[in-house]
């Protein structure tokens, strides 16, 4: 942290800031995994880091969790400097990594008791804490089973429960719902909201645009180790400066005509769904969209429905980077 800043001006020391990073850098040989990221996360909020495979999300989070030492830059977590006070940082955080950090051979309960003992709970107390957490995460029935027999959703829940033995100031969740089915995903989302509601600051990473949109108060978009945008979901969408007009045709056979007309009216390439009954197109203003709908009707193209939508975060990502969020540029599944 800078020496010149007074305690009140320094976001890292401010009681309202959970995480404050300045210029964090981590390179692996030629790979600039994290290439100078600044970030301030207010306490008690959910903050999402959004980026495609290989963007540097895990590397960034591992530095904040003291698992990896920054090449340069500084950061404080709950007021403690990462490099100078790693022990204090560890006492204030918990991390649920991208890959389950559980002992597969042990039962769910044994995993929890092990961690409770490491946190300093003794004998009976450790067992009680483990049982309480297992019950709260709907795992009481599976507590005696080895983790290798758990489903993906159960593992995730156990992994998150394992991060709550002692209530952390900051909880890091690295891709908490990757690989989960929709139901399990909803469960994890609900859990994350409850934790945030109870005052835990949550920093999560995700490749899912809707996940960041659904959960996070603020979102940082990172790509190639750099932060390319930050704001609320609404701000990021507004930054693209446009919305979408979606129309649903009564007769899908008219789709070609509709596409041609909309392209002409709004000077943008429309996108149509596979069945051809729906067409969406970028519109710079509601007025322009209105005029375009008027032209469709005047040309005898009947609509069952039309709506003006905000751009999705996918569109935001495309607008910011010039490439879609899904494109990958690196190998996946690297062991950290």
């Amino acid at each position, binding site marked *: 942290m800078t020496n010149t800043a007074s305690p009140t001006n320094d976001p890292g020391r401010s009681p309202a800031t959970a995480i404050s990073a300045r210029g964090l850098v981590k390179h692996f040989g030629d790979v600039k995994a994290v290439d100078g990221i600044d970030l301030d996360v207010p306490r008690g909020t959910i903050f999402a880091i959004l980026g495609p495979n290989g963007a540097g999300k895990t590397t960034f989070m591992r530095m904040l969790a003291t*698992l990896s030492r920054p090449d340069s830059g500084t950061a404080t977590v709950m007021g403690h400097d990462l490099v100078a006070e790693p022990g204090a940082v560890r*006492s204030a955080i918990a991390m649920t990594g991208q890959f389950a950090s559980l002992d*597969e051979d042990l039962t769910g309960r044994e995993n929890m008791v092990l961690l409770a*003992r*490491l946190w300093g709970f003794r004998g009976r107390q450790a067992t009680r*804490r483990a049982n*309480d957490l297992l*019950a*709260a995460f709907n795992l009481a029935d599976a507590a005696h089973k080895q983790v290798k027999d758990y489903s993906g959703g159960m593992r995730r829940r156990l992994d998150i429960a394992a991060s709550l033995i002692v209530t952390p100031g900051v909880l890091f969740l690295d891709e908490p719902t990757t690989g989960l089915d929709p139901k399990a995903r909803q469960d994890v989302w609900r859990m994350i909201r409850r934790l945030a509601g109870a005052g835990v600051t949550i920093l999560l990473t995700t490749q899912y645009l809707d996940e960041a949109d659904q959960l996070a108060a603020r979102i940082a978009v990172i790509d190639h180790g750099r932060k390319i945008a930050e704001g609320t979901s609404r701000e990021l969408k507004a930054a693209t400066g446009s919305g979408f007009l979606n129309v649903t045709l009564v007769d899908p056979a008219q789709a070609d005509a509709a596409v041609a007309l909309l392209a002409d009216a709004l000077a943008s390439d429309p996108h149509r769904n596979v069945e051809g009954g729906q067409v969406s197109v970028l519109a710079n203003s509601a007025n322009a969209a209105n005029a375009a709908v008027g032209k469709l009707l005047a040309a005898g193209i009947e609509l069952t429905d039309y709506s003006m939508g905000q751009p999705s975060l996918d569109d935001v990502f495309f607008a910011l980077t010039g490439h879609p969020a899904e494109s990958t540029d690196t190998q996946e599944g690297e062991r*950290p």
Partner: protein
Amino acid sequence: MSDIDAILNAGGANRPPSSSAASNALVFGWRAMLKFKHVPEQMFDLVMTPIMFTLLFTFVFGGALAGSTSDYLQFFLPGILVQTVVFNSVYSGMGLSTDLSKGLFDRFRSLPIWALAPFAGLMVGDILRHLIAGLIILTIGLILGYRPEAGLPGVIGAFTMLIAIGFGMGWVFIVLGLLIRTPTTVMTVGFSFLFPLVFASNIMVEPVTMPGWLRAFVEVNPVSLMTTALRGFMGGGITATEIGLALIAPVTLTLLLAPLTLWIYLRRE
């Protein structure tokens, strides 16, 4: 999931005092014991090879090498105990490599605990494994007719020495486990340097018939020194010099590799 608020409140208000290094190490030792409970088949891997060796060497080569199978067993059994411990230390390195590849150590490393505690736990597991495997081999030896001339005190001394050997060798594989990403590679690398050490030793035969250059190696090979001490303990007539020579390797390995382990572990990304 209605209890989550209560859970978080309890976890915030009743924060336990931070735990001591010794209690951390004990918790990891407990983990090693749980592994025995859940993966008992690991014992099978650990004792099958030495049992086969004992039977084959005693009955196939024993007569030719020592005049009679019973004389050979008397000579060979302390050595096979050393071989068992030396080979079995490979498993702790494989276990560590597996744990590291699964992200489990990320959780341990993000906890406010003594950094070396997980390794202390590995050592506890190792020592248990060595003791159990050693007792199984000894029992089979007794059934086949092996008799430790120095009696129970000799056997206790021998097993204490085995623990020291296992402890020293354990560090080698902890370091390999930290450095090598795939458990099977740990095994391959481990065995490719253990095989010459074990076979070019006095475990199977006395080195008198070997060519001079090989004999020179066998006589200073730490595995030979360990085997000589084991024979001294179990057969009687152990000397302080023999104990000292046998302990050179384990003590040196521990002094060098324990700090190296910590250094690699803390710098590992």
